[in-house]
């Protein structure tokens, strides 16, 4: 169920990228899509009623592994969010520069390259 909501989020983002005419809206749709992917990654490591992945002192590692959620996807998502932030900053900078040059955010008017 919740997996299909993730998929929905990704598809909403994809639809936005394909259907929007404004550069900024395309950027926002990409971010929605990215976060859909991040949620999916997190869900893969999730376990119903699992404990946070922090080992208490004295806890046996085998029983810990049986109880906690998987910490690895969380680390991956964190990394991926940072990468996403870098790409987002670059995309927004490009949007600003494009507006300076073309005077518009409309992608149908930003088209000098053909063929």
């Amino acid at each position, binding site marked *: 169920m919740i997996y299909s909501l993730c998929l929905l989020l*990704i598809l909403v983002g*994809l639809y936005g*990228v394909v259907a929007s005419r404004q*550069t900024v809206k*395309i950027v926002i749709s*990409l971010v929605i*899509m*990215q976060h859909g*992917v991040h949620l*999916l*990654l997190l869900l*893969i490591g999730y376990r119903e009623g699992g404990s946070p992945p922090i080992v208490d002192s004295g806890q046996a590692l085998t029983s810990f592994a049986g109880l906690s959620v998987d910490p*690895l*996807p969380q680390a*991956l998502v964190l*990394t*991926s969010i940072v*990468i996403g932030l*870098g*790409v987002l900053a*670059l*995309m927004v900078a*490009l*949007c600003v*520069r*494009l507006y300076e*040059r*073309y005077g518009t955010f409309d992608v149908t008017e*930003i*088209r*000098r*390259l053909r*063929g």
Partner: protein
Amino acid sequence: MGDFDMFGVDIRTLVPLFVAVPLAAALLIQLITRERQLLSGWLTNVTMLSLVLMSCLAIGGSALYHLGGWPSPIGIDLRLDNLATLMLLVINTVGLAVSLYSMDYMRRYTATGHFYSLFLLMVTGMNGVVLAADLFNLYVFLEVAAVASYSLVAFGCAHEELEASFKYIVLGSLSSALILVGVALVYGITGTLNMTQMATRVAETGMDAPLLLAFALFICGFSFKAALVPFHAWLPDAHPAAPAPVSAMLSGVLIKAIGVYVLARLAFNVFGAGDSELSLLRWLGIVSMITGGLLAAGQNDIKRLFAYSSISQIGFIVLGLGLGTPLGLVGALYHLVNHALFKSLLFLNAGTVEYATGTRDLRKLGGLNQALPVTGATSLIGSMSIAGLPPFNGFWSKLIIVLACVEAGYYGFAIVAVLVSIVTLAYQLKVQRTAFFAALPKELPALLSKPGREPRLMSLAMILLAIGCLAMSLVVLGGLRDPWLIGAAQQTLSAGPF
């Protein structure tokens, strides 16, 4: 554990340096030499030269490096094997020529310190992708290379460059998202990100439906990066818009290091793809070859023509991979090396033409052989190589791919490959005839009598790559089953899962 090579260097200590050295140099340029153009340039060149030497030292060796000393399935590994060595050699050799070329070419731009930093970051990312032994670090390095290339495409900040870069970044982020979904799925199914462990678990379960979905996502994502045909829309805009040295790097190595290489690695070494999965690669290759070739023939912008030609040549490489036979793999890897050399050479030639005349439009050019002798001669070598005329390297690699098609029983594909080679010859002759051999147009002679139209370092870089092309045509004499380079890399791929 690690092998020692003839100079007594432990190869294992070299492995992290392929990533660390260019990364450190990029930082150093930002911190110290940003304002000093010449110093930044030389620092980049020295870095690239040291990377080339390190790649040469790594030939024939193999090593597994544990980052931070953590043992294998827990920690992060870097793995150097024959295929990785081949890719490292290609990336860093072309990178050296390109950085030499940039010394003169980038003089007309401002903020060259940033250019050299981004260039080195791109090299860092590509070296990292080639060495990464787990899927997520591969993704991270891929993003490092991709982000650097997005900003390098926009480096000139003119109308076309920004537009091309925006297109590139949107499609690039889309494909990265697809790849990340693939990574998530594979992790969910196999419970590991380490490619060796993943390969054993995939081999145990076989390719079931969820794994096939993950594989399909990877194919889509990396086909974007490699610009195979239904996913190619960004390349003909992005590659010509970038400054010439960057175009050479993008078309020459980037699409191979983060596209074709990863496709090959995943298909053969991780998923152990069977014939039905490989047929997908074959068709992608064939469609790219035909579409790229036909579109290239209609272009009048030199760099745009070369960009479409890249799509077509990548098609040859992927077709060879898709055959999955040992001969097909040799052909694909040989063509990969050759294409890296002659396509970067041709982009550098186009850059020199633009540098000297101020235009890339074939209709306004002509007779450049007298005015730009080095460019003329080297571009002739590049054109003849890519067109596949007999003594040159492109002929041998295409011949092997065609023979591999015949050997595998795909006669139709072999005929298509031959026909596309003829189309390649046609558009390369068009470039040679109109730009280099025809009479000089009226407007050009005044421009061409000025001194410094073909600066020394730019000529040196082009000559270096041309010699590389000629040297690669001699490899075929060694029977190509050579134990140290292409043959060795081919063995890595056909060995199946790690």
